[in-house]
């Protein structure tokens, strides 16, 4: 016989969103989360917005290096190469 579960309130749902997205909610809680979400468009909106936030963060990756930094690191690289790599790169054939 299924035990009666208290419905989750919206106030509680917003604190479970990340656990839900991370798939770390215990099974019973996950089911109650999904049941609430199906009936509550506002909480569905909140969940969607948390997803959008995470997705937009992924668009922030920048790999911009100044030419000065690049040049400095490249110069250093030429000094670090393991001692058995004495040929210039263009002459090395792939192993």
């Amino acid at each position, binding site marked *: 016989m299924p035990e009666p579960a208290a419905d989750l*309130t*919206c*106030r*509680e749902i*917003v*604190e479970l*969103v*990340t*656990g839900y997205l*991370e798939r*770390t909610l215990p099974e019973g809680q996950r089911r109650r989360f999904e049941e609430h979400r199906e009936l509550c468009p*506002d*909480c569905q*909106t*909140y969940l*969607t*917005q*948390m997803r*959008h*936030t*995470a997705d*937009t*963060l*992924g*668009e*922030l*990756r*920048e*790999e*911009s*290096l100044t030419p000065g*930094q*690049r040049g400095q*690191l*490249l110069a*250093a*690289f*030429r000094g*670090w*190469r*393991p001692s058995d*790599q004495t*040929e210039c*790169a263009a002459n*090395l*054939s*792939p*192993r």
Partner: protein
Amino acid sequence: MPASDPSSLEEHQLLVALRAGDERAFVELVERHHAAMVRLATAYVGSEALAEEVVQDAWSAVVQGIDRFEGRSSLKTWLFTIVKNRASTTFVRERRSAPLSSLGSEDEETGPTVAADRFCSSSDPSLDGEWAAPPRPWEDAGRRLLALELREELRRALEDLPRRQQMVVGLRDVEGLDASEVCDLLDLSEANQRVLLHRGRARLRQALEEVFDHAPQPA
């Protein structure tokens, strides 16, 4: 066999080329990862100038240790782990700033991540806890129109987060590392990492909400 073009190399090919001493592979790797490594190092040692030194050391270790990379973790995780180790050494040597783990107190926020007044408080249990001021959906059209502003605001808001929230959100959502990698890098329990991720994302969502709320309505 024609030389591969480093700008289109997958990670594996990049490593093969780097092992062979290919400078273009090194530059490609640096282009991809240097900025993120500096951000990580800055969180550990507190100053960007010191962080640049740490990452320079790290690159040296990468190049000299490239044969030791076994591919059990992603390349990015390996790079970040080297940065972490170099940063710890630097911290001990310089005793310059508090290590990441000791900045706990500012992040020990508790309490709701959404303002309490956005929900009903009622003695009637069927009303209590329901949205009073629910979030308004972000229309796709709005998201496209505001894309630039949203990213700018997100960058700003990310920098304003408490440091550990910033680090977790940065590594998970910006850099794309998975939960266990971030726990290892930042010496966090899974639960703690999740709380920081949750709190950070909730604040950032709110920052984005404010962009939408203040945007001019379409005619």
